[in-house]
């Protein structure tokens, strides 16, 4: 069951990710990105990270994608015209990319040969209770600094996107 769930959602994630890059229209890319976020949320659940899975759906697939769709609507971005790429890139691009990916996977397997099997329900450390306890005791200072970061980001976004008043 775990294997099937992992394979199904990993393949959905990779296909949607390729679709994000390949599609010419920004809205199609945004919808594919929501597919990636959703399938990654399922994988987080398989890994026992319940809280992160919920945050992924709410924050990424909800808030961030609404922001993206709003900006696409505001800018009225149309289809992108591909320019001609060089012959070397067209021929060698995809094979070299797959070779690099194979190399990365090979080294990951070499580094973690006896890595523990990932089974659903074997790790209960990702509940909201455990995450909240770690966040508000051990990682309290980084958490507070993050709130300052968000404040700066809000102010920066407002200052950048406002109309000049003169």
């Amino acid at each position, binding site marked *: 069951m775990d*294997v099937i769930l992992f394979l199904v959602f990993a393949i959905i994630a*990779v296909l949607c990710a390729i679709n*994000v890059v390949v599609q010419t229209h*920004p809205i199609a890319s945004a919808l594919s990105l929501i597919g*990636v976020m959703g399938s990654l949320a399922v994988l987080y659940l398989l890994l026992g990270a319940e809280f*992160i899975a919920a945050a992924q759906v709410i924050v*990424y697939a909800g808030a*961030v994608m609404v922001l993206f769709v709003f900006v696409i609507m505001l800018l009225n971005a149309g289809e992108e015209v591909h320019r001609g790429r060089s012959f070397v890139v067209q021929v060698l691009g995809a094979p070299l990319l797959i070779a690099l990916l194979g190399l990365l996977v090979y080294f990951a397997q070499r580094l973690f040969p006896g890595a523990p099997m*990932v089974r659903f329900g074997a790790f209960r450390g990702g509940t909201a209770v455990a995450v909240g306890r770690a966040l508000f005791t051990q990682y309290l200072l980084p958490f507070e600094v993050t709130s300052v970061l968000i404040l700066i980001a809000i102010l920066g976004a407002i200052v*950048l996107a406002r109309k000049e008043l003169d």
Partner: protein
Amino acid sequence: MHPITTAHYLGLSAALLLIGTVGVLTRRNIVIILMSIELILNAVNLNLIAFSKALQSVNGQIFAIFVITDAVAEAAVGLGILIALFRNKETVLADEIDLLKW
């Protein structure tokens, strides 16, 4: 069937990272470049959570929360910059924005 190990999750994460990098490098539309950056940050998150499970520790998930926060802040500021840029240059294509070239 072959069991799923941490290395499988690392491989999926590497695939998402490479696809996101290709998107950043090859696309001209800045909105799609920002989406590809989100893809890269999601690959990082998957790595962190896979290791959190492998090491039976919640610390990786805390880091994933911080990465999510960073990604949201980056998207907000990046799209704000994009709107300011569109107001001045009337384009969202990265190769037509060449103010720093001479």
